[in-house]
């Protein structure tokens, strides 16, 4: 007979963002449990509301299959003496809990051994689960847990208040944190019943009748239907929708309004208040502007008297009033008069105040503008004012809006557009999907700010480890890479990063990540290009594009294979390819393929140099690739390891020159050619390239 399972862990409200990962973990823990116990299910699903984690399965066997195991004992020769069992045999039998007569003889490659055929009747699934579920429940991972029954007690995300554990129609009886499992659940806190008797079949419906939608999809659908029925254009916000799905058991959207007078405040401020502080959807008017409405999602069925709507409207009015108050008060002291106040705002204990940071960033912005041969006046001004919004009441209240508020204030205070825009966009890009600042001054400021944070944190040892990156340095470095490449800023990274090899290495990882994951270049092309230097990321991009374009041509991969061969030969000869190339003695060359290779190479060399200078890497690569027949012929006909030491040296020098010329664009030996297998787990090859050359 096959049985269904229902496990419901009833808790106090779990933080919404932790729920889905917890469900995934619950499911994999349960899958493991089944496997360990030679059980299986033919259907499984997890669900959750803020107050319950639910696991359901079907097709569980009533009991495990019986098992049989052959346990080996002493050799037969040692087990009996004169037909009588020896101590060894008696001991083994005792250990197995049987008489010697129950033992068997097993013939193995090493001879005959005593053994015992241990049979175990399969245990009842109900019992297995009753034994294993308590541990499984407490194993579910949450980022931050608590104890509540007393010191040393079990830890979970929030207190467990009830448990439903049914296998078929029977309760798998156990206890966790003083809570006994049973067959009763709880409905919605305010609208539903308590101690509701459920079974595997009617569980979801009984909860639905008690104002709990167990399925997230059902709650999502209820919100979406509700939104669609409000008769207004709700601004889509998938992340907010997910939050609301997981902070409600019975979600119902309602429409509220606010005084259009508030629309004089910047839209950024209004939307942030609604979204981040009140979890409201914004509403658009016909022109795509903000309408004086909002949508709140209640965790209840209806608001017939409009009490909830009026309550939310009053809260929003107070919040908007606050924002207006902050805006007005903040204008009494323009940003430029707040620079000195930054001395009281900590950037980082060891790195000083935001005033210290501001001074550094102003300097750095100036330096960057010089390096980039750009006018730096706007960037320097923006850098001076960039952090001043941290002292404003508006940002103290709406921290998400730092930068944006500074930009809006700078605009209101008459700063030029390039200055206020730079301040407004200083934290961009906030993710890999986000765009970089739109203006040159904005890019310089964003770069200077991020580079200062990176240099400073690395200097005082605040280096990200594993998943711990409290200062979001990975994001900062990623932002720098993105701005340099997409902003076409050919700045020398070595100069920007300073001398810290750890920071260079950290950056190299970000550079690789950017070109591979964000831009989709093949990992071996990225390795090849980076190995030839990465001081100028715009140049890296050009070289990558060239390689990508040339790669499918017929000469490329065979030539790459030849270069790999050259590199190996040179390595075996003990030649340091990083050193300056020595001169070729043409007199020592053998006529034929060797001399021809040199002359072909020399004809090419100056042209390739020209192309490289003009960054016409594709043409340069195509020229190099045209050498392929000569190289092939050389390897075919000429013995590199000539017996004469001088000739041998000279040949190696020829190869060395050849390699160096091409290596300025990419290290071809990094290219994985189709004739060789990709390395196992062909993911990123983390060989350390030179930080920069």
């Amino acid at each position: 007979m096959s049985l269904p399972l229902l496990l419901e862990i009833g808790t106090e409200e779990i933080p919404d963002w932790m729920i889905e990962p917890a469900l995934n973990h619950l499911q994999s823990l349960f899958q493991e449990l089944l496997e360990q116990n030679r059980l299986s299910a033919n259907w499984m699903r997890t669900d959750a509301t803020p107050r319950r984690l639910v696991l359901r399965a079907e097709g569980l066997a009533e009991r495990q299959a019986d098992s049989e195991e052959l346990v080996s004992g002493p050799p037969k020769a040692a087990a009996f003496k004169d037909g009588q069992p020896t101590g060894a045999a008696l001991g083994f039998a005792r250990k197995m809990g049987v008489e010697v007569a129950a033992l068997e003889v097993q013939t193995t490659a090493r001879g005959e051994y005593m053994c015992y055929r241990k049979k175990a009747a399969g245990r009842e699934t109900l019992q297995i689960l009753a034994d294993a579920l308590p541990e499984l429940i407490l194993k579910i991972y949450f980022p931050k847990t608590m104890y509540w029954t007393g010191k040393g007690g079990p830890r979970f995300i929030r207190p467990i208040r009830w448990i439903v554990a049914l296998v078929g129609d029977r309760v798998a009886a156990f206890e966790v944190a003083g809570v006994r499992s049973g067959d009763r659940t709880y409905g919605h806190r305010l609208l539903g019943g308590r101690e509701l008797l459920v079974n595997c079949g009617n569980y979801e419906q009984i909860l639905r009748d008690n104002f709990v939608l167990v399925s997230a999809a059902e709650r999502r659908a209820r919100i979406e239907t509700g939104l669609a029925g409000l008769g207004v254009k709700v601004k889509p916000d998938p992340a907010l929708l997910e939050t609301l799905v997981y902070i409600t058991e019975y979600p119902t959207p309602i429409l509220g309004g606010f005084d259009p007078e508030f629309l004089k405040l910047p839209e950024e401020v209004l939307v942030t208040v609604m979204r981040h502080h009140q979890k409201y959807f914004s509403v658009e008017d016909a022109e795509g502007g903000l309408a004086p409405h909002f949508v709140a999602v209640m965790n209840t069925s209806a608001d017939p008297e409009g009490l909830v709507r009026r309550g939310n409207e009053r809260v929003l009015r107070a919040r908007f009033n606050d924002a207006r108050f902050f805006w007005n008060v903040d204008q009494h002291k323009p940003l430029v008069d707040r620079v000195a106040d930054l001395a009281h705002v900590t950037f980082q204990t060891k790195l000083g105040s935001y005033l210290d940071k501001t001074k550094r960033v102003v300097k750095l912005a100036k330096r960057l503008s010089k390096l980039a041969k750009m006018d730096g006046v706007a960037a320097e001004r923006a850098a001076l004012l960039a952090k001043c919004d941290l002292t404003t009441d508006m940002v103290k209240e709406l921290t998400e809006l730092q930068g944006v508020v500074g930009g809006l204030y700078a605009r209101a205070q008459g700063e030029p557009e390039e200055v206020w825009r730079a301040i407004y966009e200083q934290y961009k890009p906030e993710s890999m999907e986000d765009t970089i600042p739109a203006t040159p001054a904005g890019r310089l400021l964003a770069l200077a700010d991020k580079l200062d944070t990176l240099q400073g944190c690395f200097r005082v040892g605040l280096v990200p480890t594993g998943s711990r990156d409290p200062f979001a340095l990975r994001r900062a470095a990623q932002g720098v890479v993105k701005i340099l490449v997409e902003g076409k800023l050919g700045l020398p990274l070595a100069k920007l990063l300073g001398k810290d090899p750890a920071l260079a290495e950290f950056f190299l990882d970000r550079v690789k990540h950017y070109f591979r994951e964000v831009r989709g270049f093949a990992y071996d092309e990225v390795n090849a290009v980076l190995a030839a230097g990465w001081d100028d990321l715009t140049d890296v991009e050009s070289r990558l594009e060239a390689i990508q374009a040339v790669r499918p041509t017929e000469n490329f991969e065979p030539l790459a294979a030849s270069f790999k061969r050259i590199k190996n030969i040179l390595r075996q000869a003990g030649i340091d390819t990083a050193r300056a190339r020595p001169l070729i003695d043409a007199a020592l060359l053998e006529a034929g393929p060797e001399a021809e290779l040199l002359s072909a190479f020399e004809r090419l060399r100056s042209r390739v140099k020209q192309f490289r200078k003009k960054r016409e890497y594709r043409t340069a690569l195509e020229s190099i690739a045209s050498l392929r027949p000569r190289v092939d012929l050389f390897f075919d006909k000429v013995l590199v390891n000539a017996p004469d030491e001088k000739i041998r040296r000279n040949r190696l020098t020829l190869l060395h020159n050849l390699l160096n010329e091409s290596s300025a664009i990419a290290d071809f030996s990094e290219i994985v050619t189709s004739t060789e297998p990709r390395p196992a787990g062909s993911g990123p090859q983390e060989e350390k390239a030179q930080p920069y050359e």
Partner: protein
Amino acid sequence: MDTFQEVLFKLKKYWSERGAIIQEPYDLEVGAGTMAPETFLRVLGPRPYRVAYVQPSRRPADGRYGENPNRLYKHWQLQVILKPSPADVIDQYLGSLGAIGIDLRKHDIKFEEDNWESPTLGAWGIGWQVMLDGLEITQFTYFQQCGGIDLDLVPAELTYGLERLTAFLQGKDSVYDIEWAPGATYGDVRLADEVQFSVYNFEMADVATLWKLFELHEKECQRLLESWRDYPDKKRFPVLPAYDQVLKCSHLFNLLDSRGAISVTERVAVIGRVRRLALGAAQCWMEQTAAEVVQ
């Protein structure tokens, strides 16, 4: 419609019926009800305790000269400690809202993640902000640690923002318009307080004097804590007066902060100084109560 004071009476009555001792506010300046010894010290150790009290809480930096309808230099908290927390603590809490006339079936209530931490007190807990129709009315915390000590019994701390709650009940947009008692508004009772203390905290408090006071209280606290080890009759040892000195230091720190007198490099160090005192007092209290249990 209940007045501000009527709301207070009803909540105190409600919690007294559930076994809480009704205390009066602690008579020193504190930033939150949590800092009163009735919470900070009583949550330590293995003794069950239930207490509720209104605590006027002073946050100098939050002052707005009485001009902001929702921000106050000093606001009234109702602090409830249930140690250990009963299994039906949330139901009991929701019952208290019913007791002040909120028909929860007609409203929207949500528990949104909000963990609490006080570096100065070496204390933290796990919990929520309770949202009523989008308004945060209560901070609900399961304490885990206090004074750097893992708690034996986990208390539930309920902190009601009384002005907000009453403004909600009375449908007022400004706390100053709340009816405190028949014929008297919150503004009548408290506006002058808000204006004058904002002026003092932001403009006139003498920084040198505040620093001097801070150091005096700190020294006095250290002197007491250092004498603990050799003090013969542990039961009589003045832990509570030592803790008063911690509260003084904490408040002076807040004042200095609102005056903008604490530089970045000092800030972390000063928090560390107050924290050391708080941890010392907590440790003393633990040892003292453990000594009593032995007797």
